[in-house]
């Protein structure tokens, strides 16, 4: 991927809010593109207020949950998450079927590309965990390429501990967060 192409992609997907800076006593602002084409939809609270004629302000809150912007399940019903033991990047036997399934569909469609995201639990430093998550993603990548998938179809990346699947500091939460997710491009 060229640097120029990546730059444009980064800016196309870039962040939502434009924020005033007051540095050095003079105002300036960060130029940010606000069309987040792939990002989560903006949360719009459409709950009516005062329209019912009720004289008491309603304390009722309609919870709005914006679906995550991932594409899990886009074109297959195969499981897309592989879990790891503590401090391990070994793809366990129980995920053999998942790996085989993804290998078959990728070999059947050579133009198809996937991203494998490695994740860790919350313990330890963010950068070291980023490297550990990368190792997990690359372990899944390797088990796919060993079955014949072209490395060009795969990008292994890591989120380290930055994007846990489950909140919390229990053994259970940690086990759910030590994972690799297979996502279609």
């Amino acid at each position, binding site marked *: 991927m060229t640097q120029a192409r990546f730059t444009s992609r980064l800016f196309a997907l870039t962040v939502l809010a434009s924020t005033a800076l007051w540095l050095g006593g003079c105002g300036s602002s*960060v130029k940010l593109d606000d069309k987040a084409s792939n990002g989560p939809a903006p949360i719009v609270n459409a709950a009516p207020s005062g329209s019912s004629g009720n004289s008491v302000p309603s304390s009722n809150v309609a919870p709005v949950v914006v679906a995550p912007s991932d594409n899990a399940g886009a074109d297959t019903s195969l499981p897309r998450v592989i879990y790891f033991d503590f401090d391990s990047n070994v793809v366990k036997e129980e995920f053999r079927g998942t790996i085989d399934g993804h290998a078959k569909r990728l070999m059947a469609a050579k133009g198809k590309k996937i991203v494998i995201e490695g994740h860790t639990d919350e313990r330890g430093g963010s*950068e070291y965990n980023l490297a550990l998550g990368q190792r997990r993603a690359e372990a899944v990548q390797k088990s796919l390429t060993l079955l014949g998938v072209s490395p060009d179809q795969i990008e292994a990346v890591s989120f380290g501990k930055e994007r846990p699947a489950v909140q919390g500091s229990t053994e259970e939460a940690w086990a759910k967060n030590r994972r690799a997710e297979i996502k279609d491009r």
Partner: protein
Amino acid sequence: MQLPVSRRAALSWGALGALAGAALWPLSAAHAQFRVEISGVGATQIPIAIGRFRDEARAPQPISEIVKADLVRSGLFKSLDASADKLDEVGRPPLSDWRTKGADALLAGSIAALADGRFDIRYHLWDVLKAQDLGGLSLVVPAGDLRQAAHRIADEVYEKLTGDKGVFATRIAYISKVGRQHTLVIADSDGEGAQAALTSGQPIISPAWSPDGRQLAYVSFESGKAVVVTQDVSTGRRRVVAGFKGTNSAPAWSPDGRQLAVTLSRDGGSQLYLISSEGEGLRRLTQSAAIDTEAAWSPDGASIYFVSDRGGGPQIYRVPSAGGNVQRVTFSGSYNISPAISPDGRYMAYISQVDNGAFRVHLMDLASGSVKALTDSRDDESPSFAPNSKQIIYASRSQGRGVLMTTSLDGRIKAKLSTPQAEVREPAWGPQSANPKR
């Protein structure tokens, strides 16, 4: 945090907060100002009497209160209120009275609004014990720089009375998270005057100041993976410095500001590379089958300290920045990460996991190799030195929430900087005289 010291003081920031909120608060209420708490006492505290500056109420910032809070937060001063004396920088204060009241030093000043809208702040410092005039200064600044002017005065007082350079007029960067929103924040060294440099729905980690204080490098996940970006702080102009296939992370500026050490997975694994600050001339620095990450330059630019698990668990190693033999630096503990080298080159701060599983800031004297833990907390991360090498800022957790702490190098003086509603982490202390303004 439990500290083996009895004194515990929470400073009052009422007047300050209200004013900051009115005029200079670009961040939402969720980023309300830091509350500073101090635990621990230095070996000696200098008693200083600080008078309310004449006509201070006419300026939008409580100058003498900011100076006072800075000095007290350093742990090296205790403040005596001299407001009743109606002092300024012109008259000669009753020094013998203040000697009787126990003051070693006295600070007084005045503020005048100029016709062009700027403010003229003048101050004078006296050594009460020697009945000696230690000089003063006049600063003319726009309203938006009044806080910085107050920090500058605190720096002058600190240097005159302790002999060390002050760092109050510096800035810090950190990441705050509220809900799913991640913000790269820049604030004064006291946590006040916070401003959002970048807001994103995806994580931001590892901010690093360029040596001239004009740019920040950081890792942004906004494109769906980790990419190293630099951002000019005053213009907001951004550039992808490392956006290669795979993960791009852990930026560290060389002391001359021309290069960045980064961790890339483009060739498999996580390895160290050097790249120009323009994102050109990529050169691989380490060659291992292990994780090599978290580069930190020595101040002379000759060496790079980094974390590697080549020996099993993560330990800190050193490699010449021109490439060459790798030497192991940490030997005690089985999990040592996140090295930071003091600007004077004498110390390395890092995070070490201790026997009970806690992650704590440790300090190594690089000449002797001796190590000591600086905290007794559980979840410390991301140590970063103040530019005068006298303090370290780091992230920790308190009552289940991310907080920022500062500690002196002997671990005795700590201050907590925390936002009431936001999760804060990944602090980075900016260099001296960032964006000189006067």
